[in-house]
């Protein structure tokens, strides 16, 4: 019964919340991608590997049929598509969009962050205007090269305002509570069952503007242990297994009936160092650490060649990326020399923290511990719950910690701004370089593309030289499916877009 139109997915965890204003997580991004339709999208192109990718050079309309940027890039006008209906049959119009903006602004979370931090909007009244029933305009104080791209982000979906408004209460004027466990938007799917920690059921939106999805039902089961997901896929109990370990993927690849899709995406996995405190305030020490990493071995034994060395702080698939400044080899002698220059020929004691339950980090940590020991750097491994880890590195209390992140906007300045700008809240490594800051700030407002690219190359060069992190791997994104599952596609937030998939 409908086995061909039903997809069962084994996921490490169910989304924490269905609200797009909830802090971004991988599971959350997947929901947003499948449920919340946005105004704009990238055009799609098929890669050599048969995977559908986003074409970062071409932005097309989604809910907005078309859009118009002012030449100085200070305003964008969306022409909404007519006749677009939500899962519940409510039609899209300018009011819907305006209410979504209003909610986003007032929730003071993700939407608010983009608008204030990237666009520097101060006054929402002036920024968001309804031109007519199908036209909406956003005006920003300064020019921004990202003015169009941002609207592709999965946290900026347009909500089915008519439906959401039914669930407003006086103490919850923006339906924060209702939307954390329910969905209402114009995307290809709607979540009809949300049992956190157990399962999530997606059902196709028959009114979807691109036509209803081929998979009419997607069941996402939580299976925290990756080996269980492997076993389930192997046994044919699920069609798709997300976030498997490279070792398991290597095993599955050899198995009949299973296909492993591999993408070199935007993840960067590194060990961040606290650049503000000794010993890592010394660039020589930081470089020494980078010389001690046995990258080849980690690539082989942990990543099974599914990853690539991190050769730049910018994701390798993003425009302006360059690997020409990467010069670190596994060279303990050089590392020792650097440590000696830094006045620590005997090495030192330090700590490396990783998240509870993260198998890869634990494996790398064990390898690094041995590797660092070669230059007398004695590392104590600290495993801690994610919350503790975040708290401690936010306060600068851990000297070294694993950090795996991706920036979903494919723009080097945006990425660099997040991680390397000394003003950024998530520059947890406290890296500070006047020149880098200045180049990033210029890149965020300049509209001269060539200059931006040149600036970003310089930023990459400076970063590699000052080694604020221990550069490890770009792990890519992989998905294992039964072989009859086709149509795999990849988007910057990773996760899966079920709309593109089908079964034969």
């Amino acid at each position, binding site marked *: 019964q409908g086995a061909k139109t039903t997809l069962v997915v084994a996921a490490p965890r169910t989304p924490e919340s269905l609200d797009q204003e909830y802090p971004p997580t991988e599971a959350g991004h997947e929901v947003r991608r499948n449920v919340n339709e946005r105004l704009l999208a990238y055009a799609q192109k098929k890669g050599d590997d048969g995977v559908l990718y986003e074409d970062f050079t071409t932005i097309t309309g989604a809910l907005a049929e078309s859009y118009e940027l002012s030449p100085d890039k200070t305003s964008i006008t969306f022409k909404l598509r007519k006749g677009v209906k939500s899962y519940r049959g409510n039609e899209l119009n300018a009011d819907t969009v305006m209410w979504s903006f209003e909610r986003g602004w007032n929730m003071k979370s993700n939407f608010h962050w983009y608008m204030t931090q990237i666009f520097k909007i101060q006054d929402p009244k002036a920024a968001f205007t309804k031109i007519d029933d199908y036209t909406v305009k956003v005006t920003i104080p300064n020019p921004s090269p990202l003015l169009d791209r941002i609207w592709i982000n999965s946290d900026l979906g347009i909500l089915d305002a008519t439906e959401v408004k039914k669930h407003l209460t006086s103490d919850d004027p923006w339906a924060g509570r209702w939307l954390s466990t329910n969905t209402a938007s114009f995307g290809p799917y709607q979540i009809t069952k949300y049992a956190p920690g157990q399962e999530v059921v997606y059902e196709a939106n028959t009114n979807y503007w691109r036509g209803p999805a081929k998979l009419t039902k997607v069941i996402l089961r939580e299976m925290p*242990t*990756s*080996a*269980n997901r*492997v*076993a389930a896929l192997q046994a044919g109990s699920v069609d798709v297994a997300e976030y498997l*370990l490279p*070792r*398991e993927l290597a*095993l599955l690849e050899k198995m009949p009936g299973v296909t492993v899709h591999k993408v070199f995406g935007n993840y960067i996995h590194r060990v961040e160092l606290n650049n503000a405190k000794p010993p890592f305030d010394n660039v020589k020490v930081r470089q020494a650490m980078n010389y001690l990493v*046995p990258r080849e*071995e*980690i690539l*082989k*034994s*942990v990543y099974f060649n599914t990853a690539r060395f991190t050769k730049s702080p910018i994701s390798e698939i993003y425009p302006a990326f360059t690997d020409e400044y990467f010069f670190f080899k596994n060279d303990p002698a050089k590392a020792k020399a650097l440590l000696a220059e830094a006045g620590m020929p005997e090495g030192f004691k330090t700590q490396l923290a990783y998240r*509870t*339950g993260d*198998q890869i980090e*634990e*494996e790398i*940590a*064990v*390898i690094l*511990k*041995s*590797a660092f020991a070669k230059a007398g750097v004695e590392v*104590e*491994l*600290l*495993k801690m*719950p994610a919350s503790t880890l975040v708290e401690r590195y936010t306060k600068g209390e851990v000297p070294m910690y694993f950090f795996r992140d991706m920036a979903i906007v494919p723009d080097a300045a945006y990425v660099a701004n997040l991680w390397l700008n000394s003003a950024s809240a998530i520059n947890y490594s406290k890296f500070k370089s006047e020149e880098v800051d200045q180049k990033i700030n210029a890149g965020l407002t300049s509209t001269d593309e060539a200059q931006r690219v040149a600036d970003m190359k310089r930023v990459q060069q400076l970063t590699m030289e000052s080694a604020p992190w221990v550069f490890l791997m770009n792990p890519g994104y992989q998905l294992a499916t039964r072989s009859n599952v086709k149509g795999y596609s990849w988007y910057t937030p990773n996760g899966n877009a079920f709309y593109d998939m089908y079964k034969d």
Partner: protein
Amino acid sequence: MAHFLRYLRRHPAAVVGLALLLVQIIAIIFAPWLTSYSPVEADPLSSLQPPSAEHWFGTDVSGMDIYARVIYATRINLLISIVAVAFAFIVGVPIGLFIGFYRGWLSSLVMRLFDFIQSFPVFVLGMALVSVMGQEIWNVAIVLAVLFIPMFARVIRAEVLSLRERPFVGAARCSGATDFSIMFRHILPNALTPAIVQISISVGLAILLTAGLSFVGAGVRMPTPEWGLMVSTGAQQMILGVWWVALFPGMAIVIAVLSFALIGDMAKDLSDPTTRDR
């Protein structure tokens, strides 16, 4: 000594227990001589190798030699368990003795407190406590000790409650024994048998709990050689057919706990003059 030898001749199980304990003691003392591998040295290129002449028990995901880790882990596991139990014994026994011997509001209060502690699922409480205090070896030991103190106190108290009504206590008092002497010289030796049995049960339980805590990631940290942690790293592989990573440390746990169970039985019999010649 004569009792002991005679006892061993009649109870082969006790001999097995002692032999297993001896194996562990050898592992503790001679670990560096028993293997040339380091228990914490990762060798990423030889990860997950099946048992072979080179790696007797195979290697784990980080390429560490499982045999070396199993041997070295004896130190950690036994250390944690014995320290925890010793602490619990030293604290719990006098508490049990006092709350059994003197009955008053303080005794009732202490008992209620123990009731509380014991009405939590031991494992979950342990998990929570270790998370609170941080994953240090000593913290694991302290948490276990805290969990075990009520057990010892209770066992002793139950014995004391019945012993203090026994006529020999009255007889001792008539012979001029003081409260202290009655408690420690008359009652304690008689109450000790169950506490001694409890020691071995507790050491076993401590090994199991430490392993369980590490298994769910609430025990000692990587790459400390600890059996539960090792089983935990092997757990993932087991489903995929890699059996050796979890098998050997698990067997080590079984051997350790078993030896203490057997020795506990022996201690029980030997500590009681009415049974030691049986």
